[in-house]
């Protein structure tokens, strides 16, 4: 299952990438992505990261589907 993951702000800087493609097993949940990308740091990041699939906010328990675009959203601060 092919998933495109978009990274912004502090998360983009941590990986030094704005986008990652992952081949994931069927049924992978959104919340499982942070440990894959950030290892031990994931526990800390989970508390303050929101998720969007195809530009709509979703809960961490949402399952990904083939072709989804997942955006990892660190704390926003517009204005």
């Amino acid at each position, binding site marked *: 299952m092919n998933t495109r993951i*978009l990274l*912004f*702000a*502090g998360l983009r*800087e941590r990986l030094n990438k704005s986008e990652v493609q992952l081949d994931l097993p069927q049924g992978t949940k959104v919340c499982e992505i942070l440990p894959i990308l950030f290892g031990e740091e994931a526990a800390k990041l989970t508390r*303050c990261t929101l998720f*969007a699939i195809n*530009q*709509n*906010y979703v809960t961490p328990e949402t399952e990904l589907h083939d072709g989804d675009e997942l*955006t990892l*959203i*660190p*704390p*926003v*601060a*517009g*204005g």
Partner: protein
Amino acid sequence: MNQIVITKEPICIVRLMEELSQHDCCGALVWFAGIVRNENDGKPVNQIYYECYEPMAKKELEKIVQEARQKWPIHQINITHHVGALPVGSVSLIVIATAPHRKEAFDAVQYVVDELKKRVPIWKKETYESGQEEWLH
């Protein structure tokens, strides 16, 4: 009518006012400007860098505007947000609402700004006088 703009260009309040569609039913025009402040948490700030996931930010702003329109009889809403680096004193955000009466225009602008800060995927990184940089939470 809604106008939602994400821009790298300097924001000119006067030009935004001129572009508003006039309507005789509107007795109120309220605007809010966000300005880059020279300190945060006691640390002197030199500039703020704004980053945005533009397609989602525009969708989320459209949702916020629709919510505001369900709550108040707004004629026009204009939201303009800057992306990129801005020095202290620069305009980062303008929200304008026109309505028949002032209360609904004030309330709508307040609602849009509050929700924007909670949900719209825009991030800011401050650069301090010390040279340190920090993404705001």
